[in-house]
């Protein structure tokens, strides 16, 4: 479907696609096997200016928004959902700086993030705080001009490879979620160490690590927004980042569909290509339809967000929940169409199925997303009644 991209958006999409096809696809399998962070690709993405697309022009970006980020994430994810995460997770770390950073913070970090010289990460999840984000225990105790951070963050994408981390902490544990604050922590700050690298099912071309803070002292100027607004920062960030996860899911699904279509025209059984069987055609048709629906929803929501629509939590959650469920379904069907080959690690679709799974889980599980959608739906209805 033609999404009537501007000339600039078309350029972004084409360049991301070129990098995906020429640079990422040939090495996707290798990074999945080795479970390594794709530093060489980050360099390529930086040189191509792709990190600039959603950063404001005053900070050496190209002034686009969520929409442009989605275009890039989808194209990269077509080749490898894991490697694309080096891009998308940096976006998740960059968004709070764009939304809530002071002029000084923006000047300090955004130009380097725009060039890809450094990448970012976002840290909320803890061992005992997943969907129940209010249960975080990491504290940032105010002390003179500084905060002293203690605690452990878990499963942080780009962990160890990012240079700047937006960390959600409690500056006033007595107030619970209302005592939370978002603080920027540079890699290399004394008292900030990385824990073990996780061994994962999918998205293995990205490093996921623990962040360990032990009396880590950061200046108060590293605070984003205000004390007590940590959760607000996180939620507003997710509102903008979820379409990115949706696009990651769509990209993975599209990659799987492309493989399935190609395979079905090449694979002969009973003397015919299997694409000539309706059983296969119908599966392909459903896969394609679901992907297009997910893409249409996601890109329209991204446009709405960029255009300044208020209260986007509901529609933002819809993109993620819908697209990630589509990705899981489509990749599973792709494995089915490839049959025994689909199950083999030598062929790309089993990896896509493994990569797709995380999109239903991270940045808020799909159960939480549905709760967000449901709550907003009820709120809106009650408001109308008044």
């Amino acid at each position, binding site marked *: 479907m033609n999404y009537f991209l501007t*000339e*600039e958006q078309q*350029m*972004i999409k084409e*360049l991301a696609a*070129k*990098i995906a096809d*020429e*640079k990422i696809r040939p090495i996707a399998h290798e990074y999945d096997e080795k479970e390594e962070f794709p530093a060489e690709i980050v360099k*390529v993405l930086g*040189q*191509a*200016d*792709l990190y*600039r*697309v959603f950063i404001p022009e005053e900070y050496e970006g*190209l002034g686009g928004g969520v929409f442009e980020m989605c275009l890039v994430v989808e194209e990269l994810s077509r080749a490898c959902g894991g490697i694309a995460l080096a891009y998308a997770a940096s976006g998740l770390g960059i968004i709070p700086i764009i939304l809530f950073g002071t002029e000084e913070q923006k000047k300090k970090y955004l130009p380097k993030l725009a060039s890809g010289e450094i990448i970012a990460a976002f840290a909320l999840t803890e061992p005992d705080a997943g969907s129940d984000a209010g249960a975080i225990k990491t504290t940032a105790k105010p002390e003179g001009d500084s905060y002293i951070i203690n605690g452990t963050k878990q499963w942080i994408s780009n962990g160890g490879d990012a240079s700047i981390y937006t960390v959600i902490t409690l500056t006033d544990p007595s107030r619970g979620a209302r005592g939370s604050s978002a603080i920027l922590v540079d890699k290399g700050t004394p008292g900030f160490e990385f824990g073990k690298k996780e061994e994962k099912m999918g998205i293995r071309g990205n490093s996921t690590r623990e962040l360990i803070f032990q009396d880590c002292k950061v200046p108060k100027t590293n605070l984003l927004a205000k004390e007590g607004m940590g959760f607000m920062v996180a939620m507003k960030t997710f509102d903008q980042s979820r379409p990115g996860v949706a696009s990651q899911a769509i990209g993975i699904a599209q990659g799987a569909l492309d493989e399935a279509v190609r395979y079905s025209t090449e694979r002969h059984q009973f003397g015919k290509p299997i694409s000539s069987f309706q059983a296969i055609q119908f599966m392909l048709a459903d896969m394609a339809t679901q992907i297009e629906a997910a893409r249409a929803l996601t890109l329209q929501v991204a446009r709405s967000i960029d255009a300044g629509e208020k209260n986007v939590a509901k529609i933002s959650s819809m993109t993620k929940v819908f697209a990630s469920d589509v990705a899981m379904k489509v990749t599973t069907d792709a494995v089915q169409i490839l049959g025994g080959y689909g199950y083999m690690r030598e062929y790309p679709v089993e990896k896509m199925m493994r990569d797709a799974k995380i999109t239903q889980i991270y940045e808020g599980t799909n159960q939480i997303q549905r709760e967000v959608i449901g709550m907003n739906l009820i709120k809106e209805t009650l408001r109308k009644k008044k």
Partner: protein
Amino acid sequence: MNIVVCIKQVPDTTDVKINPETNTLIREGVESIINPFDAYAIEEGVRLKEKYGGTVNVLSMGPPQVDASLREAISLGADEAYLLTDRTFAGADTLATAYTLAAGIRKIGDVDIILMGRQAIDGDTGQVGPEVAENLDIPHVTDIRKIEQIDDQGSIYLERLLEEGYVRLKTKLPVVITVVKEINEPRLPSLKGKMLAKKKEINTWSAKDVEVNEKRLGLTGSPTQVVKIFTPPKPAGGKVFDGDIKDSVGKLLRELRASGILMGSEKGDE
């Protein structure tokens, strides 16, 4: 360092197919690309600029649509682009092409290094580089796989690929260098580069804009003349063995022997 990279726009011949009925190239849907060897020359020019400073000028001769290739070169890091385009340039063989390009290079002026690919994938001649050098009365070195360094005295150190190995050479600037693909891995364009390329003004020169003897241009200035174009005869249907492998190999060796070619011992015949 003032660098000129000469590029040619060519059809992507990996896509070229022959129409078996008319025996001609099917050009429909065949994309025009920067001659792949020239892409290495552009990259090398940009790398030299990054290392030694200076300007990378891309220069091409051809019809107006070459504009797209020059813009692509800008997106890949070239600074200025020049297109020599004029109906009188058409039909040029390598001699007339080199003559015209040399006129363009003279007009750009004060050039230290002229880079180009070792040959174009449509013509496959590889003659334009040396002929440009001759027109400019400067040395040339072909098939360069590495530019080692350029020193303060204007000496350039190079590695030239040969059939049986390579030679390391030293010569003086200015020089014409043709490169092989081993020399580097061309970068992808950047978004900023692409946006810049879109807006960039391409300097377009006609025959009147450069100092030339009109009689040396295009078809008129070309001593060679193509008198016939034809498709090479297809090889007669080969023999393909698709049975048992041991059997196939035996049959193959027997066939070769029948053609007077001996591979290995007679005992191979089972």
